[in-house]
C-alpha cells in the first residue's frame, strides 16, 4: 500500500499541478480547500467560483449579525489575503450555470469557461419557499445569506410587524434578531412543537414559554394559506383557519433543500441531495461534493459539524490519504442569548431505550438522556446545558455509562464524584452539612434527623423537612439516605398516577389547582414527569383533570382521548363502531324509531340491540360512515348518547305517576330534567342515573351512581351504586321534598365526584374509599355547599353541552373519519 501511494505522489510531482475547481465559496467549499492545502499544499491549482459577491464568511453566525451582536467583519472566515497567499483564484458574484462533464469544464453565468481535472460541488442548500399565493411579494425574504440579513435590517428600520414562517432553529433566530431590532414578531409554525426536529414536547414547551415571555407571539399548528399584499408589498399572512396576521416583512424559514439543480442537470446522480460515497465522490469519479448539498448513506445534513467531517474525508481522498466519512452524529444549540438549549442524537425513545429525565421547575430546567444498551444515544437539555458537551462526547464515543448511571443526569462533576459501585456509598460519604435539596436548602444532617424522628418514607421526608418536595431532582439522594438510615425499613409511598410520575392522583389534582397549571406539557414539566409525553394511562387522566379544573379555558386534547371519546362511538372487537343516540329519560317516538330503522337499513348494521340503560344500540358502523349516520340521526332530532364516554351515560326511568297505578311522582319527567341538566358532562368514569317512581324501584335506581326513588313525601337520593363486576347497592344520601332540591343535589354530587375522584374511579369505589360520612359532610354540613358545587357544575356544563356529533357532521376533524387514500393495483395498465 505504501509503495502504491508513493508512486502516485511521484506521478503528481512530475506532472503540472492538477486543476481543482470548487463551485461554492461558502463554508464547505472553503473548508474543503483548507483541508486539502493542509495535507498537500502544492498539489492542485485551485479556483473557487462563488455566487455571492464577497469573501467566505461563517454563515451560521448570520443570526448574531441580525441580532446586532456581531458585524459582518466579525464573521469573515477567509479574507482576500488568504486567497492571495494560497494562490487561489476567487471568482465572486458569478454563479456556475452548467457543467460539461465530457469536456471537463464549467460555465458561469457571465459565460466564463473554467476547465477542471477535479471538480468539487459545494453548492449548499436553498431555503424552502412554501408554495402559497403571494410568496413572491416584495417583503417576503429568506434567511440564508448576508443579503437576506440586509433586507431584514432595512425592514426593521421602519419597525412594524414581522411574521416568521417556521419555528425551527433558523426561524427562531430570525425572530429573535428582528425582535431585538424593534419589530413585533409572530412565529407561525406548522408543527405543534417548536424546533420539533431537535426538541421533544417538554423542552419545546419551555422554549415557547420563554419566547412568549419575551413578547413573541407563537402560533403552533398553524398552516399558512396565503401571503396577502397591498401595492405589491406584503401586508399580512393568512392562516388556514382564516386568521390574518399583519406583516411588514415575512421571513420564510420553513426549512432548506440541498441545492442540486446544477448537478442534476449535468446528469450526476441525485436523490434528495447529490449522492456521494464515503470519499465524497459523486457518480462521476472526477466530481466530488461536500456540505449541505450532498446525500451520504441516505442522509442530508443541515448543520455545520458534519461539514467539517466531510471536508476531512474529501481532502484525504484527494491527497491519497483516504479517511472515509462515516456519517455524523449532530448536536444543536440555539443561538438566542439567554436561552440555553442543547440537543443531540436520537431522543425519540425506541425499542430497548430508557429515559432518564430530570426536571427542575423552579429553575426552568429540563434534562433528558436516552440510553440504550448502557450507552447514551440522545439528549435534550433546556435551561442547563453545562453538561451538553460531556454527554455529546459520551454519545459520540459510544461509551458504556453503566458505572456512571446513578449520577449521570446530575452532570459530569457529580457523576465522576459518585462513580462508585454502590450509589449509596457516595451519599454516605457526604458530610452532614452537605446540601441535599438545593430548592429548599436542606442539608444531609437535616434529612437524616427528619428520618430518625419518624419520617420513614419519601413522602414523610418531603412533608417533614421539605427535601425533594420542590423540583424532585434530589429524590434519588433522599431515597439513598432513607435506605442508609433505615436499612430495609423504607416504607413505600401511596400508589402513583402512573409510572411517569412519583405523584399520586390527589397530588396532581391539588397541584393543578394550586399552581394554576393549564396545559398538558406544563403539568408534565412542573410535576417532573419522567417521560417526555406521558403514556396511555396519564394522558387521558391529565386531560380530564385539566378539563375539570379549567372549564371553558382548557382546550381538550383529542390525542389524549381514548378512541371511543375521540370518535364519539364505541369500538367493537372487529374495529367497527356502535352508535347509541340519546333518548331523554328512555323515552322515544315514531320519528326517532324510524330514523334509527332507516340508518340500520341504509348502513347494513348487522345488529340492533336495546341496552340496559333504555337506549337503542346500532352495531357494525364503519368509522368512515359515522358522520353520515349521525347526520341522519341529527336530522330526526337526536344527539349523541355518550354511551362511549367517561361521562353521563343514561338516565333510566320508570313510567311513574303518569301511567303506573303505584307511581308517586313524575319519575319520567324528573328523569328527563336530570338528563337535560347532566348530559355532555365529562367525568372521572362513566356515570349512570336512574329515577324510580316508587319504592318498587323498577328503574333499578339503587345500583346506579346516582339514584332517585320517589316516595309520597318527596325524593330519596341514593349514591355510589354499581351493577358491574362488583355489585354495590347505593347508600342513602338524603331525602328532599322538591324536584328542584333533587336536581341541585344531583348536580352538587356529580361536581364533588368530578372534582375529587381519581380518573377511572367509579362512584362506588370512590364513596367506599372516601367514606359515606365524608361525602355527606361535604354536601350537607355547610348549607351553601350544594349551591356552590351545583353552580360550578352548571358553569362547566355551559361549555360541554354541544352535540359532538353535530360538530362532526359539520366537518370538524374529518381526518379522524376519512381514510388517507386507497391503494389499488393498476388494473387499467395491465389491461392494455
Amino acid at each position: 500500500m505504501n509503495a502504491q501511494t508513493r508512486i502516485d505522489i511521484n506521478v503528481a510531482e512530475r506532472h503540472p499541478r492538477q486543476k481543482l475547481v470548487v463551485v461554492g465559496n461558502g463554508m464547505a467549499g472553503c473548508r474543503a480547500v483548507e483541508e486539502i492545502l493542509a495535507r498537500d499544499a502544492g498539489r492542485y491549482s485551485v479556483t473557487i467560483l462563488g455566487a455571492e459577491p464577497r469573501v467566505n464568511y461563517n454563515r451560521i453566525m448570520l443570526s448574531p449579525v441580525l441580532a446586532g451582536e456581531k458585524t459582518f467583519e466579525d464573521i469573515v472566515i477567509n479574507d482576500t489575503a488568504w486567497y492571495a497567499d494560497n494562490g487561489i483564484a476567487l471568482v465572486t458574484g458569478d454563479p456556475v450555470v452548467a457543467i460539461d462533464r465530457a469536456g471537463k469544464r464549467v460555465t458561469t453565468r457571465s459565460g466564463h469557461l473554467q476547465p477542471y481535472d477535479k471538480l468539487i460541488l459545494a453548492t449548499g442548500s436553498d431555503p424552502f419557499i412554501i408554495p402559497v399565493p403571494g410568496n413572491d411579494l416584495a417583503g417576503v425574504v429568506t434567511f440564508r445569506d448576508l443579503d437576506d440579513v440586509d433586507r431584514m435590517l432595512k425592514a426593521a428600520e421602519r419597525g412594524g410587524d414581522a411574521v416568521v414562517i417556521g419555528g425551527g432553529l433558523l426561524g427562531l433566530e430570525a425572530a429573535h434578531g428582528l425582535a431585538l431590532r424593534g419589530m413585533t414578531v409572530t412565529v407561525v409554525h406548522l408543527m405543534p412543537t417548536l424546533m420539533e426536529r431537535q426538541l421533544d414536547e417538554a423542552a419545546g414547551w419551555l422554549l415557547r414559554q420563554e419566547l412568549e415571555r419575551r413578547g413573541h407571539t407563537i402560533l403552533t399548528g398553524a398552516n399558512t394559506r396565503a401571503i396577502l399584499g397591498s401595492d405589491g408589498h406584503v401586508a399580512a399572512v393568512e392562516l388556514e383557519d382564516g386568521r390574518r396576521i399583519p406583516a411588514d416583512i415575512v421571513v420564510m424559514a420553513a426549512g432548506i433543500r440541498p441545492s442540486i439543480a446544477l448537478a442534476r442537470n449535468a446528469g450526476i446522480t441525485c436523490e434528495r441531495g447529490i449522492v456521494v460515497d464515503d470519499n465524497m465522490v459523486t457518480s462521476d469519479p472526477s466530481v466530488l461534493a461536500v456540505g449541505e448539498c450532498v446525500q451520504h448513506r441516505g442522509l442530508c445534513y443541515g448543520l455545520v459539524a458534519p461539514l467539517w467531517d466531510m471536508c476531512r474525508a474529501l481532502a484525504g481522498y484527494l491527497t491519497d490519504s483516504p479517511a472515509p466519512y462515516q456519517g455524523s452524529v449532530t448536536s444543536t444549540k440555539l443561538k438566542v442569548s439567554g436561552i440555553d438549549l442543547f440537543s443531540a442524537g436520537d431522543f425519540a425513545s425506541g425499542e430497548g431505550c430508557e429515559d432518564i429525565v430530570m426536571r427542575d421547575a423552579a429553575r426552568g430546567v429540563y434534562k433528558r438522556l436516552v440510553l440504550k444498551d448502557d450507552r447514551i444515544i440522545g439528549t435534550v437539555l433546556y435551561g442547563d446545558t453545562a453538561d451538553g458537551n460531556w454527554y455529546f462526547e459520551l454519545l459520540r464515543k459510544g461509551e458504556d455509562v453503566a458505572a456512571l448511571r446513578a449520577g449521570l443526569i446530575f452532570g459530569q462533576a457529580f457523576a465522576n464524584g459518585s462513580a462508585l459501585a454502590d450509589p449509596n456509598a457516595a451519599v454516605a460519604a457526604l458530610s452532614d452539612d452537605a446540601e441535599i435539596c438545593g430548592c429548599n436548602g436542606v442539608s444531609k444532617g437535616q434529612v437524616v434527623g427528619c428520618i430518625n424522628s419518624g419520617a420513614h418514607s419519601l413522602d414523610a421526608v418531603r412533608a417533614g423537612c421539605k427535601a425533594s418536595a420542590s423540583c424532585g431532582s434530589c429524590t434519588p439522594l433522599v431515597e439513598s439516605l432513607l435506605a442508609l438510615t433505615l436499612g430495609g425499613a423504607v416504607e413505600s409511598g401511596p400508589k402513583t398516577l402512573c409510572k411517569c410520575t412519583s405523584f399520586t392522583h390527589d397530588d396532581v389534582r391539588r397541584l393543578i389547582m394550586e399552581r394554576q397549571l393549564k396545559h398538558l406539557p406544563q403539568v408534565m414539566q412542573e410535576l417532573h414527569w419522567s417521560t417526555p409525553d406521558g403514556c396511555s394511562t396519564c394522558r387521558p387522566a391529565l386531560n380530564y383533570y385539566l378539563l375539570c379544573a379549567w372549564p371553558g379555558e382548557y382546550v381538550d386534547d383529542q390525542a389524549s382521548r381514548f378512541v371511543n371519546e375521540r370518535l364519539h362511538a364505541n369500538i367493537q372487537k372487529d374495529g367497527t363502531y356502535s352508535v347509541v343516540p340519546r333518548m331523554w329519560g328512555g323515552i322515544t317516538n315514531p320519528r326517532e324509531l324510524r330514523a334509527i330503522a332507516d340508518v340500520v337499513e341504509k348502513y347494513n348494521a348487522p345488529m340492533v340491540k336495546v341496552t340496559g340503560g333504555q337506549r337503542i344500540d346500532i352495531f357494525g358502523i364503519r368509522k368512515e360512515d359515522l358522520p353520515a349516520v349521525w347526520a341522519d340521526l341529527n336530522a330526526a332530532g337526536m344527539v349523541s348518547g355518550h354511551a362511549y364516554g367517561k361521562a353521563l351515560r343514561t338516565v333510566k326511568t320508570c313510567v311513574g305517576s303518569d301511567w303506573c297505578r303505584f307511581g308517586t311522582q313524575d319519575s319520567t319527567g324528573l328523569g328527563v330534567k336530570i338528563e337535560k341538566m347532566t348530559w355532555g358532562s365529562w367525568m372521572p368514569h362513566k356515570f349512570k342515573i336512574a329515577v324510580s317512581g316508587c319504592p318498587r324501584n323498577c328503574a333499578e335506581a339503587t345500583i346506579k351512581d346516582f339514584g332517585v326513588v320517589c316516595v309520597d313525601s318527596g325524593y330519596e337520593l341514593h349514591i355510589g351504586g354499581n351493577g358491574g363486576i362488583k355489585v354495590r347497592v347505593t347508600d342513602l344520601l338524603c331525602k328532599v321534598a322538591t324536584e328542584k332540591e333533587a336536581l341541585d343535589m344531583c348536580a352538587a354530587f356529580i361536581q364533588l365526584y368530578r372534582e375529587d375522584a381519581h380518573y377511572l374511579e367509579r362512584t362506588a369505589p370512590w364513596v367506599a374509599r372516601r367514606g359515606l360520612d365524608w361525602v355527606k359532610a361535604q354536601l350537607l354540613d355547610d348549607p351553601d355547599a350544594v349551591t356552590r358545587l351545583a353552580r360550578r357544575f352548571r358553569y362547566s356544563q355551559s361549555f360541554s353541552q354541544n352535540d359532538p356529533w353535530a360538530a362532526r357532521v359539520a366537518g370538524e376533524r374529518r381526518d379522524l373519519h376519512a381514510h388517507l387514500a386507497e391503494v389499488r393495483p393498476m388494473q387499467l395498465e395491465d389491461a392494455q
Partner: protein
Amino acid sequence: MIGKWLDIGPTTQIEPGSARTLPVFGGEEIAVFHTVRGEFYALVNKCPHKAGPLSQGIIHGDSVTCPLHNWRISLRTGEALGEDKGCTPTIPLKIDGGRIFLLREAVVA
C-alpha cells in the same frame, strides 16, 4: 414507470398524536402514525393480539396502545412491548419535501 416509493400525500393531513388509515385493495390496511413530537411511522393496522385497529390507539412516545386490550406496540419495530409477545409488520416510510412516501413493494406485498 412505477417508482420505488408511493406518494400518499402531504404530512399535514395527519395531525400530530394521531394516525390515519390507508386501505389496500387485496392487501392489509395500513395505519400511518404521526407522533406528538412529529415523527411518522407506518404499520399494518392490526394488533398482533386480536387484530385491533392500532390506528385508533393513544400514541405516546414512539408507541401506540391498542384500543381493544391495551397492548403497547412499538411504532419503530411493530413489536409488542412489556410482557406481551407479538409483532405487527412495519412499512418503510420516508418524508420528502413535506410529503409521505411508503415503500411500494411493502404496501402491495
